[in-house]
């Protein structure tokens, strides 16, 4: 059941109750979780948080913690799977789900008693009509029941009529089934993302008049993470930013600023156009330009010509090479202050029209000043750290911590990790292109990250592998500029666990699709390909286009995928 009035139908229901919070491993979920925690702290609602990385985790966490608990809140998980079927809960258990994964599983939509979906009222769902997809079984049974009640003598007499009626009914049923199949196919074909969970939660906080700058910043971080993972298109991002900017102005522009300035230690958020350059404020401009997908792919930095072009670009800006390789924070003040304007002007000449996006930055104290893009990158890097001494749950907790101001130091660790990750990604893209390892299979391109390369460990994490995939696809398309390749999707695999012989597989939709709607058809395709060939795959991730597979089954899986997509 979809819920629009989240305050009345969700918050007022769980107040003074004990709640189980199941949170998935992504930045948006962490931010939404932080906001909800803040609300729970205000109202003394006791809770337990458990991190869940996939469906198996979800099942286990529910079994372990749900005893005596009636209220389960799920953040960015559970929406696109049939929960009642998976978890077999007691009848008194109610699930409140705030999940940006789309499409929502229809059994969740049409369950009125136990599954409540917290959604943004502005979202569109294109839900099929109830009677088109769910057959009222009872009425059927009633009919058959009546039939058998009739005396057998009578029945024989009406045989022909009943037979005709039965035939008619069967025909209708078949039609209905076909219709349902078509509707379901249309509904399920693409996986995509709706409004960020953190925005839904922030909206609740605002309606409860408990929103503060801290909560607002988390909402901003959550939304920004959706942008960098390309989960939403630019249009949706801009409209959400506009919405958030209203709150930013409300919280950060109090009358006569000069007369009563806020304390330095208070949090201040401001709206700024921000360059889409990865971590440039915490790196050098040169490195950042090299490691950002947009600039690296547009300038074709994989070739000598491209590298020359980068130098030209810097020269055009009037920035000495030595300065651009300097740590950004140590750059001459004159350059540092102007670099954003110069870069934007020069970018237009080099075909980098979309280099800046509307974004926000935050400041508290003298030392801490961050822009939303960098924070979103850093938190994601902590989540996907490849440090083997840390379990998935520990990484989750660390990432959760770094969002609070008390543990802000951990964010710095995240920034460093993110740099390492991006270097790994760029090196991998370079070697895939150099070795011509991006191959066309006909209906799609594919690339295997070979085992044992120095950076390959980074790609055992789904988000990082998807970043690699998007980066590779864009680089490939822009480098070869073949008309045909432009509309091809890409499948990337990377070794996950060498000893168990498993690989991680992700599917990246074609670039135009990625830019405009961020829809992905690989979820369904992977499922069908695995089914047809009996490949040993695990569809555990909440994102359906991420699959774990036995490495030895790869070729038959790919064969099936080719014939499926042709």
């Amino acid at each position, binding site marked *: 059941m979809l819920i629009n009035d989240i305050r009345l139908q969700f918050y007022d229901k769980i107040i003074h109750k*004990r709640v189980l919070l199941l949170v998935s491993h992504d930045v948006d979920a962490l931010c939404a979780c932080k906001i909800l925690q803040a609300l729970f702290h205000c109202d003394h609602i006791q809770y337990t948080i458990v991190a869940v990385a996939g469906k198996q985790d979800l099942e286990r966490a529910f079994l372990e913690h749900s005893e005596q608990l009636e209220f389960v809140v799920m953040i960015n998980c559970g929406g696109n799977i049939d929960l009642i079927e998976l978890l077999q809960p007691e009848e008194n258990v109610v699930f409140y789900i705030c999940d940006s994964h789309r499409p929502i599983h229809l059994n969740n939509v049409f369950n009125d008693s136990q599954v409540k979906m917290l959604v943004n009222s502005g979202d569109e769902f294109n839900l099929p009509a109830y009677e088109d997809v769910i057959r009222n079984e009872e009425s059927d049974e009633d009919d058959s029941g009546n039939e058998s009640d009739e005396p057998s003598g009578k029945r024989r007499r009406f045989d022909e009529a009943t037979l005709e009626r039965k035939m008619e009914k069967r025909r209708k049923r078949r039609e209905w089934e076909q219709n349902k199949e078509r509707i379901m196919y249309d509904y399920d074909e693409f996986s995509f993302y709706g409004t960020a969970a953190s925005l839904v939660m922030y909206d609740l906080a605002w309606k409860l008049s408990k929103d503060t700058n801290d909560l607002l910043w988390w909402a901003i971080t959550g939304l920004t993470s959706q942008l960098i993972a390309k989960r939403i298109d630019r249009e949706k991002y801009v409209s959400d930013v506009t919405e958030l900017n209203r709150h930013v102005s409300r919280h950060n522009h109090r009358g006569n600023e000069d007369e009563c300035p806020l304390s330095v230690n208070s949090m201040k958020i401001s709206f700024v156009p921000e360059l889409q350059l990865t971590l440039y404020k915490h790196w050098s401009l040169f490195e950042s330009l090299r490691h950002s997908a947009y600039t690296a792919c547009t300038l074709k930095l994989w070739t000598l010509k491209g590298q020359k072009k980068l130098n030209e670009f810097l020269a055009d800006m009037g920035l000495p090479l030595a300065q651009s390789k300097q740590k950004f924070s140590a750059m001459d003040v004159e350059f540092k202050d102007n670099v954003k304007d110069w870069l934007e002007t020069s970018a237009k000449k080099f075909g980098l029209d979309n280099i800046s996006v509307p974004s926000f930055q935050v400041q508290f104290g003298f030392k801490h000043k961050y822009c939303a893009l960098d924070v979103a990158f850093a938190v994601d890097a902590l989540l996907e750290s490849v440090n083997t001494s840390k379990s998935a749950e520990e990484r989750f907790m660390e990432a959760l911590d770094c969002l609070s101001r008390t543990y802000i130091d951990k964010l710095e660790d995240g920034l460093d990790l993110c740099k390492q990750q991006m270097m790994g990604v760029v090196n991998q893209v370079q070697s895939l292109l150099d070795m011509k390892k991006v191959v066309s299979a006909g209906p799609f391109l594919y690339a295997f990250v070979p085992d044992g390369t120095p950076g390959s460990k980074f790609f055992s994490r789904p988000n990082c592998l998807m970043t690699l995939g998007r980066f590779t696809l864009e680089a490939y398309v822009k480098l070869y500029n073949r008309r045909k390749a432009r509309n091809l999707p890409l499948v990337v695999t990377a070794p996950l666990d060498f000893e168990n012989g498993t690989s991680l597989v992700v599917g990246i939709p074609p670039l135009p699709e990625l830019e405009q709607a961020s829809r992905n058809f690989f979820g369904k395709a992977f499922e069908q390909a695995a089914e047809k060939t009996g490949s040993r795959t695990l569809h555990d991730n909440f994102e359906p286009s991420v699959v774990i597979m036995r490495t030895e089954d790869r070729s038959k899986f790919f064969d099936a995928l080719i014939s499926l997509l042709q």
Partner: protein
Amino acid sequence: MYGDKALELILELKRAAEGSLPPYNEDGIRQVLEETSVLYDQNQADVLRESSMTGAESLLSAVQFRHTCLERNQRCLLAYLHNRLEIIKEMRWEFGSVLPPDIKNNMSEQESQWFNKYSKSLASYMRSLGEEGLDLTQDRKPPKNLFIQVRCLRDFGEFETEDGSMVVLKKNSQHFLLRSQCEPLIRQGILEHILS
């Protein structure tokens, strides 16, 4: 030199890390006691000699010196035992009536007995307060919040809260619980307090 062993005991206790109890040094204590009894015997002999013969006043200063050493040994021993008891007493407030095994193993038999008696008197005193008793070991510093955020550092299993419901404390789960209930578990190292 006389008194060195006794000083050694004191230093050992002083060097121990805050909030820990070093093992009961039975050997050291025995050595100090032996030294003391040797001193006592020598003094006894000298005093007898002094009273039996004349012109033995020169012995007196030695007797004096030994006596001072003897008293010093006694003081050091008492200080050692007393300070250990103070530590053990503090632990009753910190950990409650059941001590972690590593601390228990470092206590002497008598200390264990003393601890049990102290624990019992404290418990019965706390029971006698008010109508239903009052746990004095809670909120030893003025509390700032009723509820706190805690993270589980190791698997503990089911934990019954004051309202009778169960919370499963599993490694790496995070909870928002009554401060008073978490305090003992935090002291035992099962939970970690998280700031918001």
